[in-house]
């Protein structure tokens, strides 16, 4: 099974992402503050997408619960700032550590499950946290949410550009760590496990421990997204744990390309723009998002599973192959 990175050359794996980061760095000088805000929300979505891509794209672990860690990151950050008087960066790092702890404990069971059970139980875990956040009113303010009290230097209303650069800076640091991780031998080992877990085990690789490791790392990445989201939203609701957050992570990764390092970056930009412009016409973005997801899943021929074939870069070729295989299916005996 060849990865899209191989087919398109190594540059295609990280090149588009680097290009987007350069545009992102110049964004406040190029567009109005409305679009800078949009850029900030794209960066947050990208981080949750990156977290999903680390699991699914590199390790073949289909998590439908990255909202758990996104939400833990957001809530811990807000609570430490509001209740503990910590500064933002300390609180953010504590939020990431908290998410890693949650991932370490829950992952000890989760990473051993069959794929479908892994999907269902990561999903159920996020739902459990949403329930807890909605009911622990004394701590979280329940469904009315918690407003974060930030100093003026981090208030997005006072200075959009400054806060945007804080978000971008943290995101670049997270991207750098994730990039080093997947390009080092750890990333290769994970891909080996993804392709054939039994063979990897036979070769003496501790499959469960490796899976747990990437699960914990992905949790920290999602938590960074959650903690940063606090800067642009300034309020946290229990809906940070909603499955739509996990679904968005999946959709942006699919759009950009599963297992492609630039995938979630491309996808976050495309989905962000679609939702932004559709959102101007109607509040009902569900139909559009559903159609986008349907289109991407159908374009990827024999499953988007970790081959990067859902990628925008690979889309034209994939579309031609898809049409050809549909024509073939129409001729062949359907009961195969």
């Amino acid at each position, binding site marked *: 099974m060849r990865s899209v990175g191989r087919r398109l050359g190594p540059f295609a794996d990280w090149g588009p992402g680097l290009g987007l980061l350069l545009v992102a760095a110049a964004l406040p000088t190029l567009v109005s503050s409305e679009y800078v805000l949009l850029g900030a929300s794209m960066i947050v979505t990208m981080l949750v997408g990156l977290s999903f891509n680390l699991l*699914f794209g590199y390790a073949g672990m*289909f998590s*439908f619960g990255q909202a758990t860690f996104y939400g833990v990151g957001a809530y811990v950050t807000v609570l430490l700032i509001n209740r503990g008087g910590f500064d933002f960066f300390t609180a953010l790092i504590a939020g990431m550590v908290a998410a890693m702890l949650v991932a370490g404990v829950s992952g000890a*069971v989760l990473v*051993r*499950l*069959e*794929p*479908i*059970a892994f*999907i*269902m*139980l990561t*999903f*159920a875990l996020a*739902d*459990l946290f949403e*329930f807890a956040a909605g*009911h622990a009113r004394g701590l979280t303010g329940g469904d009315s949410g918690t407003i974060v009290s930030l100093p003026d230097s981090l208030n997005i209303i006072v200075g959009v550009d400054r806060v945007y650069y804080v978000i971008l800076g943290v995101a670049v640091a997270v991207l750098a760590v994730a990039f080093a991780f997947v390009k080092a031998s750890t990333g290769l080992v994970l891909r080996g496990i993804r392709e054939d877990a039994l063979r990897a085990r036979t070769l003496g690789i501790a499959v469960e421990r490796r899976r747990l490791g990437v699960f914990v790392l992905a949790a920290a990445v999602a938590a960074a997204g959650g903690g940063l989201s606090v800067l642009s939203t300034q309020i946290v609701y229990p809906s940070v744990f*909603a*499955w739509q957050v996990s*679904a968005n992570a*999946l959709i942006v990764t*699919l759009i950009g390309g599963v297992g492609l390092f630039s995938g979630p970056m491309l996808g976050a930009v495309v989905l962000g723009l679609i939702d932004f412009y559709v959102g101007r016409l109607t509040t*009902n*973005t*569900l*139909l*559009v*998002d*559903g*159609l986008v*997801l*349907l289109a991407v*899943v*159908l374009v*990827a021929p*024999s*499953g*988007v*599973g970790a081959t990067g074939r859902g990628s925008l870069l690979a889309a034209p070729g994939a579309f031609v192959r898809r049409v050809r295989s*549909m024509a073939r*299916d129409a001729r062949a005996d*359907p*009961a*195969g």
Partner: protein
Amino acid sequence: MSFATFLDQLFAGLGLGFVLFFSAAGLNLVWGVLGVMNFAAGAVYMLGAYLATTVIARTGASTLGWLLALAIVPVVAALAGAAAEVLLLRRTYRAHDENQQFMLTLALSYLIAGGVVLLYGTGLRTVALPASLSDSWNVLGATLPKYTAVVIVLGVLVAAAIWALLYGTRIGLLTRAAVDDRTMLSVLGVNVNRLYTGVFAFGIGLGALGGVVDAPNGAVTTNLETAALVPAFIVVVTGGLGNMTGALVAAVSIGVIESFVTLQSPTLAPLTPYAVMTLVLLARGASGRRLLPTRPTAGG
């Protein structure tokens, strides 16, 4: 706890459990036979509840209108399910990529939820029960709402019908055979594609039936999607993926336990399904068995 209170909670719990069984059975049947985990089950349930509000409102909350909703809505949903299976899912069986199938049903859930918002808006709706079903009986000092009794009877009938279908008919025999060896079955001249479409449509119909039956129990809102999906997933996992008997036992037990927990602490009651699932999974793990079976087994 007095005996009357005990009966009260038991009735409520059975009512809850059988509502849970409808959607869990649909989910489980589709998983067991087709190997597809249908994320759209929650959206189908929500759609069922919304369609029921329309049918019942049009017929002026009469007994006939309620029966009509019970008969029509699942059939409409099943037909739509059949169309979705033929157009979208059928092409995925050969590659058998569980993740891709899951994503297709996720896309369907978006489309259904978007359609519901388009048709009904995001406000809440309620269903008025017909007068014939809205009062209650006195059983040994306890109150048994007529509607709860109807739900329990309906649940038992549906469970019996599923068993009769799976174990008493040729279609059921072929369905169970398809779980074991799909290719062999098609070599023997059985139209497996049609069988799969039928099973998927039946599963979707069951899910919509759950929504119709549950609609009069509370407000119909867009929150129903997640509210229905999570417990259904939990029932399927607790009972054992693909295991119908397990799903029935799990649904009814979770319903009854939740009902008794509600008496002690209404706040914590929604956690019951998680707690039961965790205990069952831990017990399975402790007894040295796999946490969950790899291959689905349909039927018993």
